[in-house]
């Protein structure tokens, strides 16, 4: 039974981050490949502050500040660069943040990770994590549905479909990007608050490149921009990812097989959505 609660907890902890990322990559069509980098820094900021100060309020505030600064930096880059160059740049940002975490041994313990992450007092069992994560996920679903239906959602979509036309109608691209990245950062923070506490361990390996591919696959498979679609794909892909543990394969082969499988799924869903993933400009 605990395993089912574990699946619910993992899926619900992924949902806020995936839905918020969907706003940038799915709805805004901004080639943002750095969501895991934001989550990484937010997790370390929260955990280190909680462990050093003993206060979760201080930890959350530091987490918010970190996420806001990093999101503003990414939004600035997105305004400054061509789309494809921005995509590559965000991967570079992710790798660089990872390099800093891995090498700043005095603060982060590098590749050893941080054991004994303290938990909120009301989160003591797998069930309590699953319920708390489900409540936060539900709030995110509601919030993102409201954003989707709001004027801001339409503005972001207009910018994604035809930037020049949208700008000529008075839509402020800078404002739209800043808000979208801040929302994506909020999703990353929600996951960062829960996930290390759930494991009671924070390790840089949980924020490596394959997790980015998992997120991109979630958004593309769930229909980019669709809140309910991405919600469903998050649940299904998380179940698939966890179910792979039961394959009768040696543990050394599990990692590579998972990489190959998710790579193939990602290729398949991009092929399936190749006409709608990025908007086509009308030539006539």
């Amino acid at each position: 039974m605990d395993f089912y609660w574990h699946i619910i907890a993992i899926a619900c902890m992924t949902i806020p981050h995936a839905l918020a990322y969907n706003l940038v990559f799915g709805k805004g069509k901004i080639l943002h490949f750095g969501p895991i980098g934001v989550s990484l820094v937010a997790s370390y900021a929260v955990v280190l502050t909680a462990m050093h100060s003993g206060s979760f309020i201080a930890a959350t505030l530091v987490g918010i500040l970190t996420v806001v600064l990093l999101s503003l930096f990414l939004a600035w880059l997105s305004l400054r660069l061509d789309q494809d160059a921005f995509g590559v740049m965000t991967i570079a940002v992710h790798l660089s943040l990872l390099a800093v975490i891995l090498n700043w041994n005095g603060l982060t313990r590098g590749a050893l990770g941080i054991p004994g992450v303290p938990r909120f007092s009301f989160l003591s069992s797998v069930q309590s994590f699953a319920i708390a994560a489900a409540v936060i996920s539900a709030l995110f679903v509601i919030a993102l549905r409201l954003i989707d239906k709001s004027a801001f959602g339409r503005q972001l979509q207009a910018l994604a479909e035809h930037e020049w036309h949208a700008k000529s109608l008075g839509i402020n691209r800078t404002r739209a990007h800043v808000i979208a990245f801040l929302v994506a950062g909020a999703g990353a923070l929600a996951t960062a608050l829960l996930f290390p506490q759930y494991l009671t361990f924070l390790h840089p390996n949980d924020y490596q490149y394959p997790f980015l591919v998992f997120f991109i696959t979630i958004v593309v498979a769930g229909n980019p921009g669709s809140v309910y679609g991405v919600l469903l794909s998050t649940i299904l892909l998380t179940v698939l990812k966890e179910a792979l543990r039961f394959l009768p394969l040696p543990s050394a082969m599990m990692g590579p097989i998972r990489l190959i499988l998710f790579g193939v799924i990602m290729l398949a869903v991009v092929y399936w959505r190749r006409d709608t993933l990025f908007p086509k400009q009308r030539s006539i």
Partner: protein
Amino acid sequence: MIQLILNGLIAGSLAALMAGGLALVYGVLGVFNMALGQMALIGGYCTWWLHQVLHLPLALSIVGGLTIAAFISWIAFEIFINPFYKRHRFLPLVTTIALSMILDGLILLFFEEKPRAIMPGLKHTFEVFGGRISVEQVALISFTVLLMMALAYVLHSTAFGRKIRAVVQHDHAAMSLGIRAPLLHRSIFIMSGVLAGLGGIYLGIDQNLTPVFAFPITIKAYAAIIAGGKGNIWGAIVCAYIIALLEQFVVGVHWFGAFYISAGYQQTVALLFIILFLLFRPQGLFSSKARSA
């Protein structure tokens, strides 16, 4: 100081090969290949396998490694690029991320995570102006220079090069004049894969091959492309050398006589380099600013 310059030249030669091939692909196809690092490692690992496991002579192993790199590039083009790049030029950016995952998985399955050296053991080094360099490294630098000269000749003095430049300028106009642009696209992508494979072989000869090298290789090549002005092959090559030199100096200099920067931060140098360009010269070092309207 001399040692740092020599190290920079060695690392720069590897990066120049990658960045040159990638800039050519970007210029002709408009595609960013995110699996470049993995394609490089495939070339290196296959050469290691042929030389160290099958005990074939080194030259034959290198030819074998490059042939496999070309074959993988062709397959990658047909599956991950060709069905997508004409629909939207961002699609291959996403599909090549999938390719990078698949190649990563295959590398881990077939070659494992252990370091693999194509030529293990001590290298024969000698002194140059106070710095030490091995025979293999001299061969590596010289061969890159020769290869770049050959590439310059092909691009600027042959009919094939003129066709490439025509396709870069306007592929539809080039096709209307009888140039087979799709075939050229395929050839350029395979050529880029072979150059990347050669870079992987360099890496396997000079150091050890491990799967973790893949993304830093890709990111450095992109940093060179962005800094050199996107699609500008010579700009990318020059910037690849500049970034490699900077990386060596950042971690090799005793800063203010007080501290060294950890080698683990080396890959962030490429990132800082791009950010500086974005601040002061977003169009790149060797491109003029495009008219926006």
